[in-house]
C-alpha cells in the first residue's frame, strides 16, 4: 500500500509560494509520510527534473505531471510516464499557450535547481489558458502516454463541472481528482455514484504546509507511473483503495489508531462509529486484542512528541485526536493493560461547529484490509437508530474462505461497505428533517447531470 499526493505545484507556478522549491517539497512530503508525489505545475514541467533529483536523494518517488488549462479554462492534470514524456507534452502545450507573464500581476515563475537555487525565470504566461479544447488536452496527454485527470472537480472555478456544467459525454478521462475541500465520501456520491471513474485525492498544494493534506492510497508494487496507471485501470490486482485528508478527517484518525492496533500484534480489531443524534454525540471506539500498554506508555501516547514508530503513514497520532475531540466538546480515553489489548474511545459533540468531518470510512476499511488479511476486522456504524455492521471473518466465509486482500476480495468488501453506508443514508419517511445541508439533495442534483451523459 502506498500513499501519494497526486497534485502539487512548485515555485514555477506563479500562484505558488516561492518556498515550494525542490528540496522543501521533498522534505515536507517525507515528513508527511508520503511515498510519492506528482509535480503538476501550470502548463509546464520545467521544475520536474530538479524535484525528481531531490526526491531521489531522500527516497521519495516523484512522478511526472502537469496541470494544463484548456481553452474553456478547465484544469486537467496529466500523470506522465517520465520526464521525457513531460517534456514532449510541454512542447505541445507551449505551442498553444499565448501570452507573456507579468510578475507584478501574477508572481514569479522560478526555474529552480534541486538544491532550491534559482536557475532562471520562465517568461511564458503559465497562469493562462491554452488554445486547446478540453478534448484536445485529453488527447495530447494520451499522445504523450499519460493519463488524464479532471483536476479538483469539486471546485467551481477551473473545475470541469463548474466550467462546463457537466463532464462532457465521451470525454476520455481516466480519473477525477477531489480537492481537500470535500470529503471523499461526499465526492463519491456526487461525482461517481455508479463508480464511473476512480477518484484521486490531491492537495493541489501551492505552499509547503499543504503538501500531503489530501492523499490517495493505492495498492501497488511500487510507487511508479506504470503501477499507478494499472491501479486506475484496475489491472493486475492494482487498485485505488481510497483517500482522505490526514489532518482533518476522523476516518484518517481511525485508520491511524487501527494501524497502531495491528502493529501491536492484534488479531482482532473492532471499530465502532456511533452518531447519536438524540444525545448529539459522536463516539468513535477502536478496540483490539494486541499487546496492550503499561500506564507509563498510556500517559505518553497523548504527547505529540512521542511515537514508537519511525514513520507515520497517516493521521497525526492520539495527541491530535485528543485535541480534535476536546475542540468539539468531547474527550479521548484510553484503556489498556499489558497483555489485555487496548481500547481507544473518542467523543465529540455531533453538531459542534468545530467537530471534524467523519471523512470516508470506506477508505479506512479498504486500507486496513488490503495489507492485513490475517486480522479480523469488525466495523459498526450507526446513525440515529439505524445501524450497519460488517465483519471481515463473515466476508471471508462468503468469499469461500480465501483471502480478502485480492482484487475480488477487495471488490466484495467495497460493495459491502457501500451497501451498508447507503442503507444509513436512505431517507427515512418517519423523519423527513435531517441535518441541514445533508448530501442527499446535492447528490440528486448531480445525478440529474449524469442522466445526460
Amino acid at each position, binding site marked *: 500500500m502506498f500513499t501519494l499526493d497526486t497534485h502539487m505545484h512548485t515555485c514555477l507556478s506563479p500562484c505558488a509560494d516561492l518556498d515550494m522549491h525542490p528540496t522543501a517539497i521533498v522534505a515536507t512530503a517525507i515528513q508527511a509520510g508520503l511515498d510519492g508525489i506528482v509535480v503538476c505545475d501550470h502548463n509546464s514541467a520545467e521544475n520536474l527534473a530538479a524535484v525528481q533529483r531531490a526526491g531521489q536523494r531522500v527516497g521519495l518517488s516523484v512522478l511526472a505531471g502537469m496541470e494544463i488549462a484548456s481553452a474553456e479554462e478547465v484544469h486537467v492534470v496529466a500523470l506522465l510516464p517520465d520526464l521525457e514524456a513531460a517534456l514532449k507534452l510541454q512542447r505541445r502545450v507551449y505551442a498553444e499557450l499565448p501570452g507573456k507573464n507579468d510578475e507584478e500581476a501574477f508572481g514569479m515563475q522560478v526555474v529552480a535547481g534541486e538544491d532550491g537555487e534559482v536557475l532562471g525565470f520562465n517568461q511564458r504566461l503559465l497562469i493562462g489558458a491554452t488554445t486547446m479544447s478540453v478534448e484536445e488536452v485529453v488527447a495530447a496527454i494520451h499522445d504523450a502516454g499519460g493519463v488524464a485527470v479532471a483536476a479538483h472537480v469539486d471546485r467551481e472555478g477551473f473545475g470541469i463541472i463548474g466550467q462546463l456544467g457537466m463532464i462532457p459525454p465521451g470525454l476520455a478521462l481516466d480519473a477525477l481528482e477531489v480537492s481537500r475541500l470535500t470529503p471523499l465520501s461526499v465526492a463519491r456520491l456526487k461525482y461517481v455514484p455508479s463508480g464511473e471513474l476512480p477518484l484521486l485525492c490531491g492537495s493541489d498544494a501551492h505552499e509547503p504546509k499543504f503538501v500531503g493534506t489530501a492523499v490517495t492510497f493505492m495498492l501497488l508494487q511500487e510507487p511508479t507511473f506504470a503501477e499507478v496507471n494499472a491501479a486506475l485501470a484496475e489491472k493486475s490486482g492494482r487498485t485505488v483503495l481510497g483517500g482522505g485528508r490526514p489532518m482533518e478527517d476522523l476516518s484518517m484518525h481511525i485508520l491511524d489508531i487501527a494501524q497502531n492496533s495491528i502493529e501491536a500484534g492484534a488479531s482482532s480489531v473492532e471499530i465502532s462509529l456511533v452518531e447519536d443524534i438524540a444525545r448529539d454525540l459522536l463516539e468513535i471506539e477502536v478496540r483490539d486484542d494486541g499487546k496492550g500498554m503499561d500506564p507509563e506508555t498510556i500517559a505518553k501516547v497523548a504527547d505529540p512528541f512521542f511515537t514508537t514508530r519511525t514513520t507515520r503513514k497517516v493521521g497525526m497520532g492520539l495527541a491530535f485526536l485528543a485535541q480534535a475531540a476536546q475542540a468539539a466538546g468531547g474527550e479521548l480515553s484510553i484503556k489498556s493493560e499489558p497483555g489485555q489489548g487496548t481500547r481507544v474511545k473518542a467523543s465529540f459533540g455531533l453538531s459542534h461547529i468545530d467537530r471534524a468531518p467523519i471523512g470516508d470510512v470506506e477508505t479506512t476499511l479498504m486500507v486496513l484490509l488490503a495489507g492485513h488479511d490475517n486480522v479480523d476486522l469488525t466495523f459498526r456504524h450507526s446513525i440515529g437508530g439505524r445501524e450497519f455492521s460488517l465483519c471481515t471473518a463473515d466476508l471471508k466465509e462468503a468469499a469461500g474462505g480465501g483471502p480478502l486482500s485480492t482484487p475480488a476480495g477487495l471488490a466484495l468488501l467495497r460493495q459491502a461497505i457501500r451497501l451498508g453506508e447507503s442503507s444509513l443514508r436512505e431517507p427515512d419517511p418517519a423523519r423527513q428533517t435531517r441535518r441541514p445541508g445533508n448530501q442527499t439533495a446535492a447528490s440528486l442534483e448531480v445525478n440529474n447531470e449524469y442522466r*445526460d451523459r
Partner: protein
Amino acid sequence: MRVADIAPMLNGTIVGGIEAADKEANGGYVSDLLSDVMGNANAGDVWVTIQKHVNTIAVAHLRDIAAIVLANGRQPEDETVRRAAEEQVPVILTQLPVFDVAGILYGVGLRGGRKP
C-alpha cells in the same frame, strides 16, 4: 421578442438550431461558467457567453434557453453547431463583445434576474 429579430440587432448570424429562431426571448443572462447558468438562468433567456464548448448546448437545452449569443467573434466548434442543430438551440454568432451585446439587449427591453 423573437430570436430571429435579435440576430440583426447584433449584426449576427444564426447557426445550429436555425428552425427554432421563431422562439420568444423574454430575458437575458450573461455567464461563462456553465454550472452558474444551470443554477441561475431562466427559461426563455438569451444567454450571452464566449464559452463555445459543446456542453453549452446541453446546458441551454436543460434550462430551456431561447438562444445562445456567442460573442467576441468566437467561432463554435463543429460539434457544438451539430448538437445545436440536433437540439434546436439557435446560436447567434456576433463580433460584438459581451458588454455591448448585453447593453443592446437591455436597450430593447430584455432584463435579467427575473423570478421564475
